[in-house]
């Protein structure tokens, strides 16, 4: 199968819709005309694009949790509770069976949840519940609600969510494939997400603003900013081509203050640069994900991780932050724990409101290196695709020019070996096939050699493992095993 970055015609979209809507009974309930009407009657305060725009204007950082439970009534109760706790926008996080399009298993989970009175699914199975149930959710709260999932093929899910009144959809053909699948080709997911983007574009053309958000953090574990930036920007370009007009680009906290702030600043700038270069006019906002890797077991320590993330997000000027909870290491949070993550984060964000970005020399240096690296990757992707970002992406992944650390997909080269330098910034021990200049390679090597010297050991895979475990052990930079705490 071949995939190209060109806008689908309405005919192409509607031909495929026929099939998509048949894959589960609730699909047939989707009526686009009715959906557009429904959206047009909705208050602007419940529309993501509007709320994001006003946050950008006011220099505000919006607070959004993750949350989803199997049953509609419980999900509504949960969202109301989180709104009460101060969430500026809300999510509906989808369960993992739905993410794999296993609607029958999701149905089993719904029924077992009803029977046992316990959540047997790790999210809200929106397809099974259908668009009507979604509208109930949207109508139960007064802030915008976003679909958050991790679904390689989210065509039906998106149809139902949009008809259900959701105004923002997370995901993308790369970011919801490489970290979330093992055996699905990029051609397939890029095409399936072109569908979603085209559908969003179609809504936009009817005067219904829908925001889209590529999933920035990818595997959430030591992903260098330039790697996630390159992917976010490719997905932005692919979405813009299908007519998406509102985009939130994301980044998962790496832990080093300067690198994290530089990442948010450069993400915005680079995205604008590449979108403009290709002639797209899109509103860009940013989202900072609080620590996406393994959390400490202890709740107070988790509050520490959450607090640092909130502080850096606010200082970086990100438009939105996605919060974690003190239960992160253990399991899906209770609504109380989820609210605690919101409240702790929001306290910090409000305290830092209006304070300027700490633009230090270190931030400037990190910005430059991130920009240089991202351009190396993106420009190679374009060249490989002979100007076509979709074709380029497929070839770049095959060649390891796009490569995500620790990703499960067999379409990912998996050659990168990220490790932290002595100050905790994420660098690359092995740059794999990333098309970096010699200067950039030397920079990474020297940073990690410096750490090696300080720790009296050679940089290697044990360092990577130590870094993965580090936060759980109360630090950012992993100490060599056996070393004292």
């Amino acid at each position, binding site marked *: 199968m071949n995939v190209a970055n060109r806008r689908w015609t309405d005919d192409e979209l509607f031909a495929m819709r026929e099939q998509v809507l048949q894959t589960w009974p609730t699909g047939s309930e989707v009526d686009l005309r009715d959906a557009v009407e429904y959206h047009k009657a909705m208050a602007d305060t419940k529309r993501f694009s509007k709320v994001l725009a006003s946050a950008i204007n006011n220099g505000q950082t919006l607070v959004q949790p993750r949350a989803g439970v199997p049953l509609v009534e419980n999900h509504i109760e949960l969202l109301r509770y989180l709104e009460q706790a101060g969430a500026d926008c809300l999510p509906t996080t989808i369960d*993992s069976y739905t993410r794999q399009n296993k609607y029958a*298993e999701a149905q089993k989970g719904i029924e*077992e949840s009803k029977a046992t009175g316990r959540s047997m699914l790790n999210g809200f199975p929106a397809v099974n519940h259908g668009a009507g149930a979604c509208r109930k959710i949207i109508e139960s709260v007064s802030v915008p609600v976003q679909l958050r999932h*991790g679904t390689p093929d989210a065509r039906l899910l998106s149809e139902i969510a949009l008809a259900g009144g959701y105004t923002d959809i997370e995901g993308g053909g790369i970011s919801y494939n490489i970290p979330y699948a093992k055996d699905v080709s990029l051609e397939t997911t890029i095409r399936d997400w072109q569908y979603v983007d085209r559908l969003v574009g179609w809504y936009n053309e009817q005067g219904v603003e829908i925001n889209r958000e590529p999933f920035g953090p990818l595997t959430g*574990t030591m992903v260098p900013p330039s790697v996630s930036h390159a992917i976010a920007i490719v997905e932005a370009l692919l979405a813009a081509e299908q007519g998406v007009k509102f985009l939130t680009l994301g980044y998962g906290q790496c832990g080093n203050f300067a690198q994290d702030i530089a990442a948010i600043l450069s993400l915005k700038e680079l995205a604008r640069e590449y979108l403009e270069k290709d002639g797209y006019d899109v509103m860009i906002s940013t989202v900072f994900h609080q620590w996406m*890797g393994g959390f400490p*077991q202890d709740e107070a320590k988790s509050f520490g991780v959450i607090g640092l993330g909130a502080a850096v997000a606010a200082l970086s000027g990100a438009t939105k932050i996605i919060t974690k909870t003190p*239960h992160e290491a*253990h399991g899906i949070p209770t609504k109380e724990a989820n609210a605690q993550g919101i409240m702790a984060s929001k306290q910090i964000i409000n305290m830092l409101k209006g304070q300027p970005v700490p633009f230090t020399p270190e931030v400037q240096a990190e910005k430059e290196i991130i920009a240089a690296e991202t351009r190396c990757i993106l420009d190679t992707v374009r060249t490989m695709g002979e100007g076509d970002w979709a074709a380029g992406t497929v070839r770049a992944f095959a060649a390891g020019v796009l490569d995500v650390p620790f990703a*499960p997909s067999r379409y990912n080269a998996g050659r990168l070996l990220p490790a932290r330098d002595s100050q905790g910034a994420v660098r690359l021990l092995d740059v794999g096939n990333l098309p970096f200049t010699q200067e950039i390679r030397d920079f990474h090597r020297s940073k990690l050699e410096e750490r090696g010297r300080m720790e009296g050991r050679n940089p290697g895979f044990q360092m990577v493992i130590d870094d993965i475990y580090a936060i759980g052990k109360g630090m950012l930079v992993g100490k060599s095993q056996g070393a004292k705490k």
Partner: protein
Amino acid sequence: MATIVLGVIGSDVHAIGNKILEYAFTEAGFKVVNLGVLTTKKEFVQAAIETDARAILVSSLYGHGEIDCRGLREMCIEAGIGDILLYVGGNLVVGKQEWEPVRDKFLAMGFDRVFPPATMPDEAIALLKQDLGVS
């Protein structure tokens, strides 16, 4: 050295712990057959038969472990490897729950050992060596 089958069960894509377990058990001298994420019960059993494995190490992080793991022991029995060692670990249920009931639930399903979140590989390696009588 003993062969073991490793993988993440069900619709679960959490890959990081899996990669570390592969590395750690290999370093410890085991022959590791790593099926990676999104592995079905059937794949676990087949791989164990094909490689003559002495243990199956199942990970489940994403919360559906309870649904996904049911019947694995029975499937092993049917396939004629009924007394293979079965280990399971990760974030086995949805939400932060008391550990003992969770452990007992999985023991009752036929697992030989059940590991809580944040288990370090060394612990499991030591126990596996003990259970297999190797060193």
